[in-house]
């Protein structure tokens, strides 16, 4: 445990500062190339650059390579490759809008390195009841988890700072869970995700200077899913991610098909005269987490973001309680 402190500290510093230092030049580069989109929740025509994925992936790769130099774990290589493939998939989607099915199918392919490196344990651990062995079924589960976590984080990237802020809370909750279940090596491997998210949040928080884009959101989500698999904490990861899962569940159960958010004509959220957000009266519009938060009345973008963060903290606490329950057997 003591020998893991140095690699943990070094990788976290690298993860944070690579993103912190690299993002401002990336913003300037994207501005020069006019790679901007309108921030639809601002009164004036505010244009924001995207994607921020390149600085996120560089931060992740740099910190994980340092960890690999210390720990020599195949699991780290599997995480790096899976996350990098997810970044490329997101970057393609940033450049050209693909169909709703493109990302889930392509992200399933991104899961293959986890299987190829054997970076998983096919025993699925549940709190209170123990583990269940599903050697064949687990392979299918791996191929499902990466598209689910990737698209779930992508679907919550709707307001300034929400995706990165949510990722800070969820990934640190997951790291704490990994420490509780005494999977120390993977806990340390998971820490850079939280620090990369934290550094990116500095520029993504309201008012955003940069959006992560699909490349950033899928990178966050795929790495989170990969850590859940290699750490054997799939259930804990799902609990920490519940607010984002609710968002995807509400969206899919109201739209009733797999589709891109941009292809939905009716918007779940409108603006008041003072440009606060309010839930739409349109019954055909999809039900989303933001729409439900706004059901009580209009709120500012910042207030909605903090409401989502409170939900993330609540589910993070549930995940930590669940981690403690892993050690209890009925």
């Amino acid at each position, binding site marked *: 445990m003591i020998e893991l402190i140095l690699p943990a500290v070094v990788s976290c510093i690298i993860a944070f500062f690579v993103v912190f230092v690299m993002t401002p030049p990336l913003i300037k580069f994207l501005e020069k190339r006019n790679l901007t989109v309108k921030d639809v929740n601002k009164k004036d025509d505010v244009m924001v650059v995207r994607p921020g994925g390149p600085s996120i992936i560089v931060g992740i790769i740099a910190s994980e390579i340092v960890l690999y130099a210390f720990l020599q774990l195949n699991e780290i290589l599997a995480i790096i490759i899976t996350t990098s493939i997810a970044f490329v998939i997101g970057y393609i989607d940033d450049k050209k809008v693909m169909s709703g099915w493109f990302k889930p199918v392509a992200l399933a392919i991104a899961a293959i390195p986890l299987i190829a490196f054997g970076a998983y344990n096919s025993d699925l651990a549940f709190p*209170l*009841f123990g583990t*269940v*062995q599903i050697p064949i*079924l687990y392979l299918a589960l791996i191929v499902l988890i990466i598209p689910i976590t990737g698209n779930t984080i992508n679907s919550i990237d709707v307001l300034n700072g929400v995706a990165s802020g949510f990722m800070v809370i969820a990934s640190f909750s997951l790291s704490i869970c990994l420490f509780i279940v005494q999977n120390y090596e993977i806990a340390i491997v998971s820490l850079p995700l939280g620090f990369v998210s934290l550094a990116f949040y500095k520029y993504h928080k309201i008012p955003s200077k940069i959006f992560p884009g699909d490349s950033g959101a899928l990178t966050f989500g795929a790495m989170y899913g990969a850590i859940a698999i290699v750490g054997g904490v799939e259930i804990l990861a799902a609990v920490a991610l519940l607010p984002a899962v609710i968002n995807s569940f509400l969206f899919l159960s109201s739209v009733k098909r797999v589709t891109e958010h941009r292809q939905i004509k009716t918007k779940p959220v409108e603006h008041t005269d003072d440009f606060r957000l309010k839930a739409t009266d349109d019954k055909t519009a999809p039900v989303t987490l933001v729409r*439900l938060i706004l*059901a*009580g009345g209009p709120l500012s973008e910042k207030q909605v973001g903090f409401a989502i963060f409170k939900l993330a903290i609540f589910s993070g606490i549930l995940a930590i309680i669940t981690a403690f329950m892993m050690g209890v057997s009925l």
Partner: protein
Amino acid sequence: MKSALFGFLFGMWILILVGGGIAVTILGPFSISGFDEFDRFIGSVIKAIVAILLVVMWILILSKLKNWIFRKEIKS
């Protein structure tokens, strides 16, 4: 509304715990014999089908829970 969302999160968490209990106590120990070298494969296929049915049930229960908690908001 916000308290309803926390309640929905809590409901999902309980469903995960209960689903885990069913998976470990009923699905996990299940085995089949009489098919020689195919015992393990057929057992896994049956487990997979039951797991998928459990997930479908989980989604249906969640959908009912959603309608019950957010009835007013979703209709508005």
